[in-house]
């Protein structure tokens, strides 16, 4: 049932970058960066610039607590409730998945902006893929 016939979507492979040369220069400030052209969000994790393709991202939420703004990025993983998405395809559901990451910043305006950029990119890519699917049918 790997091919996901009969209406089930099959998993489509994607990749953010071929190698480190393609990483955007902005990652060096150790802040979250949205690389719209490559449909990728880069997260700072203990010195690394870690790319996550927009297809791996489910949604983003934001909250303010005290002096900080918190930004949570939720990823596509198996075993999630909510939304009738049981047929969400995965390449290998037996792996370990990063389900969410939460960051905080004292610069709320910047996190508002990052939140908007990720949400817009997600919408844009979902729309393009829906259009592509419609054309194929």
């Amino acid at each position, binding site marked *: 049932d790997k091919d996901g016939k009969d209406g089930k979507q099959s998993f489509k492979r994607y*990749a953010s970058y071929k190698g480190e040369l393609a990483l955007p220069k902005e990652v060096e400030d*150790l802040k979250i960066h949205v690389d719209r052209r490559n449909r990728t969000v880069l997260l700072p*994790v203990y010195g690394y610039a870690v790319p996550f393709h927009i297809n791996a991202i489910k949604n983003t939420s934001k909250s303010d607590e005290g002096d900080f703004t918190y930004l949570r990025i939720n990823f596509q993983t198996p075993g*999630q409730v909510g939304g009738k998405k049981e047929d969400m395809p995965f390449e290998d*559901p037996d792996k370990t998945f*990063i389900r969410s*990451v939460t960051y905080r910043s004292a610069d709320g305006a910047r996190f508002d902006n990052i939140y908007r950029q990720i949400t817009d990119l997600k919408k844009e890519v979902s729309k393009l893929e829906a259009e592509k699917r419609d054309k194929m049918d």
Partner: protein
Amino acid sequence: MSALASFKNIYHGQSTEPGEIRLTHGGLAWQGTETKAVVTVASESMRAAQWIRVARSFQLRLLLSSDKRRVTFDGFHRDDHDKVAHICKQHWDLALDTRELSYRGWNWGEYDIQTDDLQFLVANKPLFEIPLSAIANSNIAGKTEVSLEFLNPEQLKPDPAAPRRRRAGDELVEMRFYVPGTVERGEDDEGGEG
């Protein structure tokens, strides 16, 4: 000891303070530009040397034999590789190994717990590493979910005398993992954090 090479704007560990690193026959010395703090590593204590692309360009990572720990310096340029590799080989008797990371952008893979780090690998290449010392708390939230909470910089560096400097970028607070584990698949209705 005279320096074989020196490099500016190098960061020690996760610090945001730039400094200068000097490589000598006997090892290396880094000094912070603002605090004048000094970090030295003797070549006898070096067990392995690695070259890794990180956020702040390239990292020289030295694995130490003494207590199995490691020391890292970020901010090297791509072109510095050959100079550093030459010193590693000629003076420290070490090969400078380039470590390849994953740039696929996937959020699934395997985790691996090593001496000092929790490593996450995508298609057998590291995606990131988290120092175990940075983990404040971990919880099992539901049968397939594990969460990690991280120490914030104030907790990591409780030194009120340290000069106030710019925040070290965005701070990672929490990470949650879906770990399928050994629970039988199929009849799963998750408790659901969603």
